[in-house]
């Protein structure tokens, strides 16, 4: 099954209301981003990090993905926003169709967001870079309006 869009995981929406996620820089939880091919079945119903469809540990990809660098959440107008520093998979030789951000500190590796790259993205002995959107009230990766 292909990726069908970007989703904030439904379980995540509940979990932030019971203090299970902390996006604070340095002292917050550790979030990771894992990459997947087109066989992954990630949707809003995804609740935890899954291995099905994840890229194999080849071409300089490490299974479970890479740790993200948090940016402490701020507000913009009446919207609270979360951002991360762009993440680079260096000297990469692989293709990916999407990604999952999950909380690596959480006991169950709770899922945060499913990201659909729309088309297959390929790097060959190069950089595979995830660019996070502008951290404002209309574009940020996670927004509570």
């Amino acid at each position: 099954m292909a990726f069908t869009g970007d989703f904030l995981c439904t379980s995540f929406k509940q979990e932030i209301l019971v203090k299970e996620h902390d996006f604070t820089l340095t002292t917050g939880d550790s979030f990771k981003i894992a990459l997947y091919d087109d066989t992954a079945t990630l949707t809003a119903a995804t609740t935890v990090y899954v291995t099905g469809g994840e890229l194999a540990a080849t071409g300089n990809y490490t299974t479970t993905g890479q740790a993200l660098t948090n940016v402490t959440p701020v507000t913009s107008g009446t919207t609270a926003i979360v951002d991360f520093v762009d993440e680079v998979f260096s000297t990469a030789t692989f293709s990916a169709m999407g990604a999952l951000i999950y909380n690596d500190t959480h006991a169950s590796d709770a899922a945060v967001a499913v990201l659909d790259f729309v088309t297959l993205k390929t790097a060959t002995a190069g950089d595979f870079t995830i660019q996070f959107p502008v951290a404002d009230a209309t574009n940020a990766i996670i927004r509570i309006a």
Partner: protein
Amino acid sequence: MFDNGGSSLKVGAVTVATTQNTGLSVEYWADRCLDKILYVANDSASPIKDQAQAYKEDIRRVLVAYIGQAIKSDRTTLYNLLLRQSQGDMAEILRKEL
């Protein structure tokens, strides 16, 4: 009457940048860095927008210069690391790139 403002929890869209047989350029990273430091909204008032764009371009030039210097410094470090490992030929390849 109260208006709840249509509150919602939303996710943004990431972009993926990839390269083949090379890394990303200094200019690419300067632009990404700038986007994190300073965002000029398209609907900003014209005089303010123009000023902000000019300021952004000034910062961009500084970032390109300093990121380039940081890369050169790192290559110097790598050059010496390779020399200490008796990898003179490889060190020389890096030195020529300085």
